[in-house]
């Protein structure tokens, strides 16, 4: 998207818009009745029991919230620096979410007692299963992509059957089929290898399409240029095409890796103690589900953000190299 060179006046500088905004927010709050929710409870000292303060309480709470919200927006809009503005909105949203979590009456004591185990056992397992799987999946994907673009009937048929089948089946089913099915033809495999095989095959199928798109996006001129020099197919692929398609392959692969972090939780059905399994299990005895679920959610989110950071670093490195 190309930004225009003429920017419209900021809406939050127009008194009419602010009035509208305030009215809308107020009506929303009145309809959704915050006095019953956690915010109402926070205002309890001022208004008394929310259940009893009735319409008056409802209106006062809503009014105060609406004023607060509009003032807050105005304050943020005064920040001149784009980055700072973004960061402050992020922080506010984060606080909002955390207070949403807080409304669950969480036992932080409990979280503290479990978090170390979740990190060492859960995150470790999740990460190593995912990392091994994504590497295998990438190899499968390269072969699959070349096969799908080939004019050889066998290669095309096998690759297309593979991608159709493994994209078509739910991952859980694949885990079961490999774990329960392989013994039927005589080979018993353990839970972790079975999980890794299932994840690799499934993601290999999705990533075949990514690699195919990456390879296809390279200008035909690169093939012609290389062929005209007398390069052979595998040389062209390794030295010319794949290196150039890496910048195009990395973003969707990063996405896949992030998705896999979460999908790897499916291997818990065959008894692997990864993060999600622990989240659903550890809190059971003392009925602290929510604590564990939210902790795991935060851990996943953190992992995702770290991965996104790494991804953007790699992307930038490649972009720099190619367009100096």
């Amino acid at each position, binding site marked *: 998207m190309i930004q225009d060179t003429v920017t419209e006046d900021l809406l939050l500088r127009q008194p009419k818009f602010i009035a509208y905004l305030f009215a809308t927010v107020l009506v929303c709050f009145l309809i959704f009745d915050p006095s019953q929710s956690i915010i109402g409870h926070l205002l309890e000292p001022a208004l008394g029991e929310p259940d009893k303060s009735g319409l008056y309480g409802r209106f006062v709470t809503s009014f105060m919230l609406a004023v607060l919200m509009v003032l807050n927006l105005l304050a943020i809009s005064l920040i001149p620096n784009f980055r700072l503005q973004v960061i402050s909105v992020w922080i506010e949203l984060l606080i909002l979410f955390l207070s949403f979590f807080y409304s669950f009456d969480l036992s932080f004591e409990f979280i503290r*007692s*479990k978090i170390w*185990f979740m990190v060492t*056992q859960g995150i470790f397992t999740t990460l190593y299963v995912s990392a091994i799987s994504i590497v295998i999946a990438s190899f499968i994907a390269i072969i699959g992509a070349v096969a799908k673009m080939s004019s050889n009937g066998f290669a095309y048929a096998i690759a297309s059957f593979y991608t159709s089948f493994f994209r078509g089946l739910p991952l859980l089913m694949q885990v*079961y089929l490999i*774990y*329960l099915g392989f*013994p*039927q033809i*005589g080979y*018993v495999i*353990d*839970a972790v290898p079975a999980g890794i095989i299932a994840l690799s095959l499934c993601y290999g199928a999705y990533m075949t399409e990514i690699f195919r798109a990456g390879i296809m996006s390279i200008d035909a001129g690169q093939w012609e240029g290389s062929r005209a020099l007398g390069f052979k197919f595998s040389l062209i692929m390794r030295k010319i095409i794949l290196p150039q398609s890496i910048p195009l392959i990395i973003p969707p692969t990063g996405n896949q890796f992030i998705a896999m972090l979460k999908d790897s939780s499916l291997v*818990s*059905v*065959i*008894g692997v*103690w990864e993060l999600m*399994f*622990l989240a*659903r*299990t*550890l809190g*059971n*005895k*003392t*009925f602290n*589900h929510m604590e564990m679920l939210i902790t795991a959610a935060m851990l996943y989110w953190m992992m995702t953000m770290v991965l996104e950071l790494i991804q953007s670093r790699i992307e930038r490195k490649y972009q720099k190299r190619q367009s100096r």
Partner: protein
Amino acid sequence: NTAYAGGVLDKIMSTKTIKIATDANWPPQSFINDQNEMDGFDVDVAREIAKRMGAEVEFITPNWDVITAGNWYGRWDMHVGSMTPTKQRAEILSFPAVYYYTPAAVAVHASSGIAQLSGLNGKKVGTGTGTTFELYLQHDLIIDAEGAPAFDFQIDNAEIRSYETSVIALDDLRLGDGVRLDGVVSSLPTILEAIENGYPLKVVGSPIFYEPLAVTVDLGDSELNEKVASIVASMRADGVLSTISKKWYGVDYATVK
């Protein structure tokens, strides 16, 4: 197709280790404790069985689906996880010994006016999917294990809500009377545990049925079956089962009242 069956007992004896499958999500029968180790009633029973076989125990926690699919191929040797022996299950697995009987009960919200089981007729009742509780609500439950007391279906035409586990059903019931559910059928110990942890619930009436729960092994190793049967019998005879039950439930579920 059962490559290892027959040799399971030999294998346990020669390696001096036994792999026991159980659930990690089923307190107080089996769960992960504060030390992040397996703990609970089933786990203590499993440990005792292993001790009496002279083997080290190693726990494995696959999904219920995977366990009940049968054909374990020696991935684990035994399952001690409160499985109800039914005739159909006996075609796939074998149940050498019943080690306790749990009462199944009905919970309602603390503020509920329902005082009798019949009060739930036609109401929304939640439970875990694929459980005997669900079968009970469907009037499909047949308990054909020896020593199990007879029972009647006391809730008619309930609108059954099946969850992945009945613990999520308890979470829903907790929201308020009739908000999502009017009642939950689960095992009495689980319900009591929830109440103890502050869930605003109460138990309605007396237990609706007693469910015999057995040690499970793969088909085909009769020596192992005999061995397990004799160990469980001796545990019952010398009162160890009762002791473990009292430790976890405060009551003796090892024998039917």
